[in-house]
C-alpha cells in the first residue's frame, strides 16, 4: 500500500508527535503519584495543575471546574447518571435529542430502566435540534437538558447558545457533549450557559484514554468512580499524568492553530463536497450545508452499501467511516441518519470523511476519483441499481 489518506479524524486522531514528546518525561522520570508528599510526586501534581488551568482557560472556566476522566464516554455517563442521582428528588425527567452519541443514548436507556423519563427531541432534515420542541418538552420535573455541541456523524453544529438560554430561563441544568466540537469551535461556558461539558483527548490529536468533564461550580453532582480523594474527591483513581499532560498539550496546539486550521479545513471540506455532489450522481450530503464541523463531510450514495465502499477505499489507502449497520455489527443503520429522515437503504450507503490538519487538496482529488470509480463499480453489482435503471428505461 502506498500513502495513507486518513479521513476518519472524527473517530480518532493521530497523537501529535509533540504531544507524545510532552508526555514522555512523565512515564519514567517524573512518575511519582500526584497525591504523595515527596518532590517527585509534587512534579506530577504541578503538571496536572498546569494542564488543568490551561484547559480551563480555553473554555472560560475555572481550573477547579475541570475534572479529568478516562474519556468522553465516562464524562457523558458521569454527567447524566450523577445529575439524575443528585437531582432525582427534584424530578426524574431529562431532555436530550435523537442524534446523541451512544454514550448519551445508552446511558439514557439505562436511566429509563431506573425510573427516569427521557424525552428525545427531534432534529430537522439538516440535523439541527428543533428548539421549539425542546422548549415545549420542559416540565416542572425536568432536571437536565443534554444536547451535543456538534454531531459526530453528520457534523451539524447545534444552537448551543439558544439551548443554554432556554435551560437557564427554565432553571434546568444544561450538559453538552462537546467531544467533537472542542478544539474545533470556540466555546465559552458562561456565554453559552453550559453547566457541564464532556470532552475526549484523542479527538484533537491528544492521547486516548483521557477526557474531562467540566462541572460548573455549584452543580451538586457527586462521584461516578468512588475511592481515593483525587480530582477534589469527585473522581477516584491514580491520576493518568502523562495522559493529562498530553491532553493539555494537544489542547494548547488545537487552540493556537484553531482559526487558521479550521478555515483551511472548511475550504477543503467544501471543495470535497462540491466535487462529490457534482461528479457522482444519486448522491446527497448529510448534515447542514454550512453550519457543520469544519472537517466533516458525510455523503449518501444511493444503491450501494457503506461497508463495501469502506473496504474498497481502504484498499486504495483511504480511511473513512460509514453509518451502515454492517460496520457496527447491528442490523439498523445509524440512528442519526434515520433521525434526519433518510430511508434505510440510503442510510446504509453513507460515507463519512473527516479531515485533519494535514489533509491536502491533492489527497481529496485522489479520494474523489477513487470514490467515483468504486461507487460505479458497486452500483454495477447492485440489484437496487439494476431495478432503478430498468424503471428509468421503462419510463424513458
Amino acid at each position, binding site marked *: 500500500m502506498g500513502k495513507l489518506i486518513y479521513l476518519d479524524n472524527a473517530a480518532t486522531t493521530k497523537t501529535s508527535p509533540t504531544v507524545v514528546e510532552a508526555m514522555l518525561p512523565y512515564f519514567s522520570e517524573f512518575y511519582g503519584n500526584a497525591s504523595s508528599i515527596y518532590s517527585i510526586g509534587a512534579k506530577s501534581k504541578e503538571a496536572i495543575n498546569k494542564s488543568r488551568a490551561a484547559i480551563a482557560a480555553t473554555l472560560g472556566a475555572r481550573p477547579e471546574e475541570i475534572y479529568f476522566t478516562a474519556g468522553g464516554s465516562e464524562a457523558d455517563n458521569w454527567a447524566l447518571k450523577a445529575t439524575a442521582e443528585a437531582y432525582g428528588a427534584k424530578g426524574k425527567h431529562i431532555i436530550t435529542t435523537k442524534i446523541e452519541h451512544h454514550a448519551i443514548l445508552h446511558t439514557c436507556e439505562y436511566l429509563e430502566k431506573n425510573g427516569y423519563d427521557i424525552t428525545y427531541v427531534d432534529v430537522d432534515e439538516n440535523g439541527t435540534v428543533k428548539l421549539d420542541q425542546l422548549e415545549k418538552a420542559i416540565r416542572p420535573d425536568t432536571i437536565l437538558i443534554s444536547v451535543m455541541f456538534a454531531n459526530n456523524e453528520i457534523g451539524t453544529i447545534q444552537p448551543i447558545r439558544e439551548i443554554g438560554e432556554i435551560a437557564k430561563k427554565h432553571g434546568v441544568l444544561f450538559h453538552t457533549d462537546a467531544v467533537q466540537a472542542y478544539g474545533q469551535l470556540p466555546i465559552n461556558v458562561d456565554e453559552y450557559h453550559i453547566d457541564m461539558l464532556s470532552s475526549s483527548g484523542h479527538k484533537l490529536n491528544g492521547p486516548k484514554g483521557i477526557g474531562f468533564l467540566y462541572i460548573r461550580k455549584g452543580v451538586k453532582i457527586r462521584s461516578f468512580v468512588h475511592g481515593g480523594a483525587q480530582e477534589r474527591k469527585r473522581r477516584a483513581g491514580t491520576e493518568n499524568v502523562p495522559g493529562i499532560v498530553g491532553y493539555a498539550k494537544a489542547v494548547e496546539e488545537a487552540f493556537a492553530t484553531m482559526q487558521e486550521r479550521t478555515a483551511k479545513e472548511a475550504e477543503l471540506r467544501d471543495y470535497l463536497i462540491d466535487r462529490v455532489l457534482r461528479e457522482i450522481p444519486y448522491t446527497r450530503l448529510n448534515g447542514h450545508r454550512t453550519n457543520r464541523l469544519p472537517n466533516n463531510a458525510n455523503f449518501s450514495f444511493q*444503491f*450501494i*452499501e*457503506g*461497508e*463495501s465502499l469502506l*473496504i*474498497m477505499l481502504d*484498499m486504495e489507502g483511504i480511511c473513512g467511516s460509514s453509518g*451502515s*449497520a*454492517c*460496520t457496527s*455489527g447491528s*442490523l*439498523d*443503520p445509524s440512528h442519526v441518519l434515520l433521525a434526519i429522515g433518510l*430511508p*434505510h*437503504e440510503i442510510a*446504509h450507503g453513507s460515507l463519512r470523511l473527516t479531515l485533519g490538519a494535514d489533509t491536502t487538496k491533492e489527497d481529496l482529488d485522489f479520494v474523489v476519483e477513487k470514490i467515483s470509480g468504486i461507487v460505479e463499480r458497486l452500483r*454495477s*453489482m*447492485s*440489484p*437496487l*441499481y*439494476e431495478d432503478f435503471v430498468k424503471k428509468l428505461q421503462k419510463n424513458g
Partner: protein
Amino acid sequence: MYSEKVMDHFQNPRNVGEIENASGVGTVGNAKCGDIMRMYLDIDDNGIIQEARFKTFGCGAAVATSSMATELVKGKTIQQALEVTNKAVMEALDGLPPVKVHCSLLAEEAIHAALWDYAEKHGIKIEGLQKPKSDIHEGEEEEAEEY
C-alpha cells in the same frame, strides 16, 4: 476481520451480473437491514445449473458469500444445489465473523429463491424446497450472550 478467501471473493467477485431470460431468479433480504441478494440461475433440461450470476447490495461478506454461492452451485444438479447450505458457503470462505453469519444465510436463501422461481415457472415441485422467506432477518436470534 475477513479471511483472505472472503477478501478475494469481495475484491474479485465471481459471476457478477445478470442472466437474460434466466431459468430462475430470486431476490432475498431487504434494504432495511442493508443486504439484498439477487441470484440468477440458468438450468438446462437435465436440471443441471449451467450458469449462476448474482447482484448484491450489501457488505463485504454479503458480496463474498454471493460470489462463493454462485461458484458452488455452478455445474450442480438442483438437488445438489439444495445441499449448498450457509455452512458450506462459510466453510468454503474459511469462515465469517460472527456478526456476518447472517450473510451466509442470505446466500443460501438466494439459491432457494432462484430455484423456487424456476420451479414455479416450470410448474414443478422440487423435493425438499420450501418457499424461501423474503427476509432472512426475521426471527433471527440475537447474539447468545447479551450484556
